[in-house]
């Protein structure tokens, strides 16, 4: 009986150790690690696992997802940056890479990585309760103008992407809002459904089930084009306000990774991105797929980083 038990314990250890994830010379001759700065089970993790699986075949090696979480993304981004620049560690970089540096929370920026590609962008949308007196963005702005600081707008946390989206709206429309930070987008949406706040500025994907059920209504989205899932919702540009703002995700490797290695990785991940499995997966998860090459990604980040820092200064979030 003792033997059985010992065997059982050994099995348990193996499970635990296997669950810890493996650590990652011609390229690639061994598995590649994909560092995700966010927890297993979240949106970023889902994309990493979906894409990782799809890119394994073209790469000819296994891709292991390693969730290095903590510090609002700071720890994982740092781990990916400080990894060996041999291409065996790829990092899924996210929007927080632009908002953490102005707060002086991390000593590095996106410029300290070599970029591989951008994967998706998800715009912010201004959403209110279905029975709200605001029918259009104009109603909302006008009310906020006559009642400065009165409208409670929920966001997903201090200095989070959706907090900055609301800040940008304030700046461009010349209004003053009352920002209410929540611990993530879902609790903010719940409070809106319960009628405890007046609006949220989160992505369409995060409110779509309530909008489709007729509990909430989207006034406008902060992108260049309308969302195919919500063809009736105008963009802010159409509504007369020049506001575009989106969160994004992309892939990067440590600085000075050899060019040929970067090419192999970029090709493999692009093939994975184009694969029918990944496209199907992205559609189901309502991801706003938006591939951009390394060079285009850089131009995009230069502009977004400047916008982000400016808004953060306005919101007193930048040091």
């Amino acid at each position, binding site marked *: 009986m003792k033997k059985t038990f010992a065997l059982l314990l050994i099995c348990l250890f193996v499970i635990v150790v296997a*669950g810890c994830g493996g650590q990652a010379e011609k390229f690639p001759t061994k598995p590649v690690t994909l560092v995700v700065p966010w927890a297993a089970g979240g949106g970023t993790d889902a994309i990493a696992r979906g894409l990782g699986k799809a890119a394994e075949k073209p790469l000819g090696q296994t891709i292991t997802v390693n969730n290095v979480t*903590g510090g609002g993304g700071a720890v994982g981004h740092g781990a990916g940056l400080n990894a060996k620049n041999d291409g065996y560690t790829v990092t899924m970089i996210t929007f927080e890479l632009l908002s953490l540096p102005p707060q002086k929370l991390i000593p590095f920026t996106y410029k300290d990585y070599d970029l591989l590609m951008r994967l998706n962008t998800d715009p912010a949308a201004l959403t209110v309760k279905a029975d709200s007196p605001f029918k259009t963005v104009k109603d909302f702005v006008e009310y906020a103008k006559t009642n400065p600081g009165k409208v409670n707008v929920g966001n997903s946390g201090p200095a989070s992407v959706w907090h900055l989206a609301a800040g940008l709206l304030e700046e461009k429309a010349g209004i003053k809002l009352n920002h209410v930070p929540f*611990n993530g987008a*879902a609790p903010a949406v719940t*409070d809106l459904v319960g009628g405890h706040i007046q609006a949220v500025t989160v992505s369409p994907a995060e409110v779509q089930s309530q909008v489709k059920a007729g509990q909430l209504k989207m006034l406008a989205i902060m992108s260049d084009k309308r969302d195919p899932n919500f063809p009736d919702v105008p963009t802010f540009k159409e509504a007369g306000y020049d506001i575009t703002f989106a969160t994004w995700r992309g892939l990067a490797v440590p600085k000075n990774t050899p060019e040929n290695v970067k090419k192999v990785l970029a090709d493999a991940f692009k093939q994975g991105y184009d694969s029918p499995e990944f496209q199907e997966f992205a559609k*189901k998860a309502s991801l706003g797929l938006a591939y951009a090459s390394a060079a285009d990604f850089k131009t995009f980040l230069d502009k977004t980083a400047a916008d982000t820092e400016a808004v953060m200064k306005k919101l007193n979030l930048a040091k």
Partner: protein
Amino acid sequence: MELDLLLKGFGVVFQPSCFGLILLGTVSGVLIGALPGLTATMGVALLIPFTFGLPVHQGVGMLLGIFCGAIYGGSISAILIRTPGTPAAAATVLDGYPLNQKGEAGRALSMSIFASFVGGFSGALIMTFASPQISRVALQFSAPEYFGLAIFGLSIIISISGNSIVKGIIAGFFGMLISTIGLDPMAGYPRFTFGFMDLFEGPAFIPTLIGLFALSEVFKGVEVLYKQEAVKAVKQQLLPSWTDIRKAWLTIVKSTFIGTFIGAVPGAGSDISAFVAYGEAKRSSKHPETFGKGEITGVAAAEAANNACTGGAMIPMLSLGVPGDAVTAVLLGALVIQGLQPGPLLFKDHIDMVYSIFAGMMTANLLMFLVGIFGIRFFVRIISIERSLLIPIIFLLSIVGAYSMRNSLFDVGLAVVFGIIGYFMQRYDFPASPILLSLILGPLAESSLRRALIVSHGDFTILFTRPISLALILLAIASLITATIMQLKLEKRMLAENAQQPRSGS
């Protein structure tokens, strides 16, 4: 109509492939839950990719099995090695481990599986028949109500203070102090992080838990490693005795309702519900002095509540599209990837799917019961292992558990630091559980109070003008007063006893 749909749901669930996967999920759930450091959330998250290729009801069934199994599994290590396998089992330690020390591990384990099953199954039943009604109430909860709930929960600190209110309060405040470490939840500025990025989110909960409870016990155990102890014969039992059931019955029913409701409120999960139910059980008990020293109803309250919470947490997830706790947040993601968008429309468009989830949840709880009963005979063997072998094993499990939460060596160091703190606390008779309660509820109290004040533009009356929030705050005050009176009486009695009969050693 409803029954008809439910029967159809069971029809789907009892197909061999689906049933097999739920069983597989439940067994792995129990193991995941029992291992310190692997939580229900991680278990579900890590296995989601395996469900992509499966039909929806099979994949979701397996995940539900993991969910239910893991919440129960946490109690096994809580009772046997003083380490809650998941945060949900933190309240189970309070009486589960003392029972084990008295040589009644079998009794505690059988009560744990029984209460888990009754709580979990009833929670699933409530979810099946009252989802729309409960989710309407849950929507009434906003920042002021969460503040009320957190304060009510914190008032329990007095009840779990052990021998001295003062020491309990000191421990509680120490926990509150620790919970302020990290990025400010409203302004985003780092507090007491000393430049460590790993502290931005505060000291990680699981490593702290492992340190305070498991490592401190290891350090203490090393002192007496080679001391020959009379091996206590463990009475094996599969089901709790009739006396125990009769004693705990009312508590289980009450805890089930508390657990389901707290689960249904987004933002409060099984860890909180277990503590609230435990506090209520102690408050309403005729022998409150036995709590914390191996009271079987204490185990029953905590386990019934945290398992009832699983059904409760599913309610807002399915009917509103907002998760009730961390695990259901991950489950929501899994459903979305399968092409099902939870929310009011799910009940309209995929009612068959909804009912197969209900049926799956009940089946998972039934299987959990069977797995648990079958497993008890193996679990109890752990304590008959020689101490000189068991203690290194617990030490290793603790280190691996602390590391695996975030793949972080920093967390291992954190666990060791808290292990040392916990060791000295035990030595000087400070209770460790108030720290835990403060760590769970402190952040909720802080952020909801500040959020309420932002929404009200700085007006404190928002806390007292909303009925639910006012009721919760009044309950907290009442609980504070009665618990203090009760505790002071206890202390007096103990003093009197000690005076009569001077303690020989400790």
